[in-house]
């Protein structure tokens, strides 16, 4: 539906552009501010700080793990939501969206309480040898919780964009439901899945309020940024933020390239 630029006779377009400016400023000014603050020397010094690099690596690693877990656990659910009708579907769709609106400290507190030794579920986890508090397991659980809506909604849209008729065609050619999923649906939604992983990972990278409750350590980048900001001031926190964002953008570009080098097609 791309419509070419018809600027010359189009007052509304110009008006809308003018109107969009505040939004673009609102979004870019803080970003520019963030990147402007640290001096180049400071940026390079930070790069040598092992703690910082570890925290950023953790943030990226845990967030990506959450993204990949969302891929493994969220894909079947997304498929069901896109393709089937079943009782309680509306309810599940509602539940999927809930993490977006739950205050972040509440998420942390709830997960922590659930995993505490005073809770039967927590005891069950402890018996299984699963520790939540202050462990990567706990952090990834929190990140998965806040990131899952992003994955499921993106991939659901992906499945919905594959015409059911293609799947039907595959089945009339003799392929069962599994083969159809593997050979038709999956290749056609691959890029949505990568996008979903990116969205989930991106959301996870930004999380602070819930993580700080579940796990101050191992320290992820947002927690470190907060700590540095409160204890040492801006000039020590901003370089960490700049590096975190720069490296995650790099990660996302790489992911997108990967998915692009996979099958390219038009519908």
């Amino acid at each position, binding site marked *: 539906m791309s419509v070419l630029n018809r600027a010359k006779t189009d007052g509304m377009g110009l008006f809308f552009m003018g109107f969009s400016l505040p939004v673009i400023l609102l979004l870019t000014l803080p970003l520019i501010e963030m990147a402007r603050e640290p001096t180049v020397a400071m940026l390079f010094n930070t790069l040598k700080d092992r703690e910082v690099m570890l925290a950023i690596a953790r943030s990226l690693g845990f967030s990506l793990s959450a993204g990949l877990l969302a891929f493994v656990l969220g894909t079947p659910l997304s498929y069901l939501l896109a393709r089937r009708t079943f009782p309680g579907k509306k309810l599940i769709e509602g539940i999927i969206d809930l993490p977006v609106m739950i205050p972040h400290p509440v998420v942390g507190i709830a997960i922590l309480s659930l995993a505490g030794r005073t809770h039967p579920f927590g005891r069950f986890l402890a018996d299984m040898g699963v520790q939540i508090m202050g462990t990567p397991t706990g952090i990834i659980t929190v990140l998965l919780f806040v990131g899952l809506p992003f994955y499921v909604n993106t991939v659901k849209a992906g499945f919905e964009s594959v*015409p059911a*008729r*293609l799947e*039907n*065609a*595959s*089945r*009339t*050619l*003799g*392929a*069962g439901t599994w*083969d159809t999923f593997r*050979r*038709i649906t999956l*290749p*056609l939604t691959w890029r949505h899945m990568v996008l979903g992983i990116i969205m989930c990972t991106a959301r996870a990278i930004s999380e602070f309020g819930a993580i700080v409750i579940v796990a101050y350590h191992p320290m992820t980048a947002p927690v470190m940024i907060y700590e540095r900001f409160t204890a040492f001031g801006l000039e020590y926190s901003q370089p960490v933020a700049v590096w975190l964002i720069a490296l995650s953008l790099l990660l996302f570009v790489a992911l997108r390239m990967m998915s692009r080098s996979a*099958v390219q*097609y*038009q*519908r």
Partner: protein
Amino acid sequence: MIQPGLIELENISLTLPGFALENINLTIRENDFFAVIGPTGSGKSLLLEGMLGLMPFTSGRLLFNGTDMDRVPVEKRGLAIVYQDFALFPHLDVAGNILYGTRYHGISRDEAQNRLEHLSDILGLSRILDRRPHNLSGGEKQRTALARALILNPSVLLLDEPLSALDPVFHGEAKELLKRIHREMDMTIVMVSHNFDDVIYLADRGAVIHQGRICQTGDINILFEKPCDLFTARFVGMANLMPVKVGKGRVTVEGSDVSLRTANQPAFPFGYMGIRPEDIVPEPEGDVPVGSEPVGNRLRGTITGIDNHGMFIRVGLDSGGLQFEAVWPRRYIRQYNLSHGSGIRVYVSPEAVHVFREKLDPVPGCQDKAPLS
């Protein structure tokens, strides 16, 4: 894998919110080229989807060669379908598309390769086997979709409006191809189409469906030439519809003294007469030509209008106060000196005088709403 040839639908119903197929009884014989026609939204595609197993029937039995299909999943029914828009897999090339189903039909790699070569030869796809669907022209897409189905040697092929999106050139090509396939391969074909030319050209038998019910089924020529009820008659383009009294071997148009011989003697006293506009043939003045029907079924009329756009002209005739409509080749204008107000003699063969009831008893509701006017 089932090898259906004979398909029987017994008392099939399929109820959806807002629409229902009801009481469908249909037998599609082995090697039939069977056409399903009907207005938009009448349930044709739904019927195909039901036969495929993609839409579960609410009740009734679907039998392939006598076997009940109720619990047989889509992929085991052995039907192949070609959709109107081909439904090619966009991420596979032409060869990939065509070979897609072979592994599920116990076809060995070598055998599949052989068939691929053979089919792409016949269908002129050899040079584009490594192209992706979005690079193909409409006709190439269509042939790929066909090859994808044909490589499995399906005993039944379903076609859902396979030609409607093609321009006239592709259209003619594709039609010939279907004809050839049906003639040369041992295959039952069920086709949904809006195009009567295609249907008459291709199909042997067919069914008319209207608001989810079958109105008439049988030989395709009979369907078009001897529709059983008023809806079907109108739908298949029968014209000159007039209420008649039925006499012995003839019908008399109500409220007039126009009376025509008819080839089949109807079993009811009142009904409707219909004559296709092209079956009203003009005759030169003078003696009845040599070799033609000696007696009767000639009408003398006045030309009330000529619509002379196109290859064929549409002529309005007034005969004995009744309005008739005829379609003739354009050159008749000169040949018979046609002009507004001139008189002319026309002949209607008794075979062309069709008589039918207004409504068919066994399918109430089918003709409730006349779609025309």
